[in-house]
């Protein structure tokens, strides 16, 4: 009986909680929140009729895509074209397994799992590039090259910004970093890292490819970028991937900068809901306030402002840590 539970338990963790099913449901809730905030800021209503107050609208959109015809372009490499959505989805779901919620086992919480998560979170961008590359169409190729260029722009500030809480807490384990304000008692640590928080928000927006950084998938220019030729189930999987990426990114930023989700299953779950919603609200404000900037402007902005800001923040934290203040 113990052997069978040893096999079944990890499967339940991967597929149900905190694995795919939990992430799917929670990410559709976050997408609903994002759409509602975005609409209300523009004086509109947002999703309204599917489910109570439109809560089921993201689920309805994804279900609709499952019923649509799935077309593979004639000149595309059939195997790679179909593999890309699955690969991207697998990467983000695996990254989500390391969320510091509730149960911590040696499988999903170990020293250095921050690095594993950062690596897994850079896979979706690569998958988007390959998806655009293997669907041979002019718009996809342009979008794919833009994805890579944007990756070069935001990846360094993203890593540096997420390095700062690790330096503050003196550990590479997400669980330790998340509860550092609770364990050390110094709550002003959150205030010190505000610059890194801002940089992390902006670079997460770039990773998610949302306005102002959504040039790879700009609807009015390249029709959909790398995802132009995708339809049906494959496009549905890309959409789920994007939603779960938003969930995982916001949850990690909330865990590292806003002080984690301690308190067991139910209290911790409440903290998860509230803090992730705050981060998603901030992402919605960023999305609504700006226009889409060009790829060369993204690179300039990132290397002129974001990277130096994260370096300055890192320097401040290192000095404070070195002097024993933190």
């Amino acid at each position: 009986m113990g052997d069978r539970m040893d096999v079944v338990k990890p499967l339940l963790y991967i597929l149900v909680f905190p694995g795919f099913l939990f992430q799917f449901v929670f990410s559709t809730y976050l997408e609903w929140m994002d759409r509602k905030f975005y609409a209300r800021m523009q004086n509109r209503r947002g999703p309204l009729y599917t489910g109570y107050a439109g809560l089921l609208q993201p689920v309805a959109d994804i279900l609709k895509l499952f019923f649509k015809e799935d077309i593979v372009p004639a000149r595309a490499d059939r195997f790679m074209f179909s593999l890309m959505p699955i690969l991207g989805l697998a990467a983000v779901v695996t990254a989500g397994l390391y969320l510091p919620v509730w149960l911590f086992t040696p499988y999903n919480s170990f020293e250095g799992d921050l690095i594993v998560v950062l690596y897994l979170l850079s896979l979706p961008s690569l998958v988007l590039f390959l998806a655009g590359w293997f669907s041979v169409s002019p718009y996809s190729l342009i979008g794919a090259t833009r994805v890579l260029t944007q990756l070069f722009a935001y990846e360094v500030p993203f890593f540096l910004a997420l390095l700062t809480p690790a330096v503050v807490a003196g550990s590479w384990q997400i669980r330790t970093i998340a509860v550092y304000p609770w364990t050390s008692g110094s709550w002003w640590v959150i205030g010190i890292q505000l610059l890194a928080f801002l940089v992390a928000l902006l670079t997460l927006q770039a990773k998610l490819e949302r306005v102002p950084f959504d040039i790879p998938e700009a609807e009015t220019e390249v029709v959909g970028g790398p995802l132009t030729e995708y339809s049906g189930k494959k496009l549905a999987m890309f959409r789920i991937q994007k939603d779960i990426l938003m969930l995982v990114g916001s949850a990690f930023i909330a865990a590292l900068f806003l002080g984690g989700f301690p308190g067991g299953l139910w209290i911790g779950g409440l903290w998860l809901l509230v803090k992730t919603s705050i981060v998603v609200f901030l992402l919605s404000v960023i999305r609504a306030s700006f226009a889409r900037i060009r790829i060369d402007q993204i690179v300039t902005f990132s290397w002129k402002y974001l990277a130096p800001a994260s370096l300055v923040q890192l320097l401040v934290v290192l000095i404070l840590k070195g002097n024993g203040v933190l």
Partner: protein
Amino acid sequence: MEESVFRLPVGPQHPFLKEPAKFDFDIQGEEIVGARMNFGYNHRGIEKGCEARNYYQAMYLLERVCGICSHSHTTAFVQAVEEIMKLEVPKRGLYLRMVDCELERLHSHLLWLGVAAHEVGFDSLFMLVWRDRELVMDILEKISGNRVNYAINTIGGVRRDITDAQRKEILGILKTLRQRLDYYAKIGTNEPSFVARIQGVGTLSAERAAEMCAVGPFARASNVATDVRKNDPYACYAEMDFKLVTSDLCDIMGRVIVRVYEMIESCNIIEQLLDTMPEGEIALAKVSRRVPEGAALSRYEAPRGEDVHFVRSNGTDKPERVRVRAPTLANLEAATESVIGAYVADIPIAIASIDPCFSCTDRMAIVLRDRKKGVQVTTWEDLRRRGIEWYGKNKGIRF
């Protein structure tokens, strides 16, 4: 190492185009080195349709050349017919026509501002501008019966009068609009991400704009002071006091500024019209259905530029020839040229900055090329005869 040139076709169907048109860009990396354009996907045969209809039917048919500048086309046509018939339209009718002209300019420029914001991904500005545009659409519905295609003209005047209540409502809306327009002028020139997309993009120098015969706000933003309301005033515009808005920025930011300030000038004109509107008839009581022989060319300042209508009559109650030259046709070549040297990401906003209306643009141009005889020139009668023969033979339709 020589970089290869990549050919990117844009259109006829593309999310940035509101109407079909074909563009071909040669791209190196992200920079555009060559551009060609092709249109004709929207041709509906309206000019031929006018020849088979009497003047009233043709007037309402010409309204449907374009949805946004519908009033421009019918007013230009009616002015040409009134010139041929030497009719003296009562002053109140002319003033009411001008109120509709300026209201149409307001709604068209607001539409353009929203669309331009959408092309650069600034969806919040798009939604807010279109929300304010609804105020203008509601008042147009009240005074004319429909939100677009107002059908308010008739030969010899207008069909509907405005009541005092409607007049007060228009003045109230103008007050709200002025505040919002000042706010949009501030946002359009100061919001860093929006300014980064439109400043220095799509430049067209003043000399080149004058050479390529650009018209409308597109030319005025390149410092070419051309406006039919000032150069060749029609319908009491000579009595109105308003500024000709130009800008010397020569890029898309200049076009945004010109259109926003033109909207403010339109608000001024409407207020002057409503304050000084004379009493009297709104249309001539009896207008002959048969138009004497003659021809007239009438120009009108549509929201997009100079709209030219040529009407030739032959004594019957159906026009002999109606020729429409829409402003977008004059601006398209200049727009295609202004894109060269910019980035791929600038294509939508640079083409959209002329406020393209391909439905207005598509008139027929036939080029018949015979390998043996070289380039041929065909006369209009020959074309008509060929068309009638072809339809009779192949489709069994007799005209």
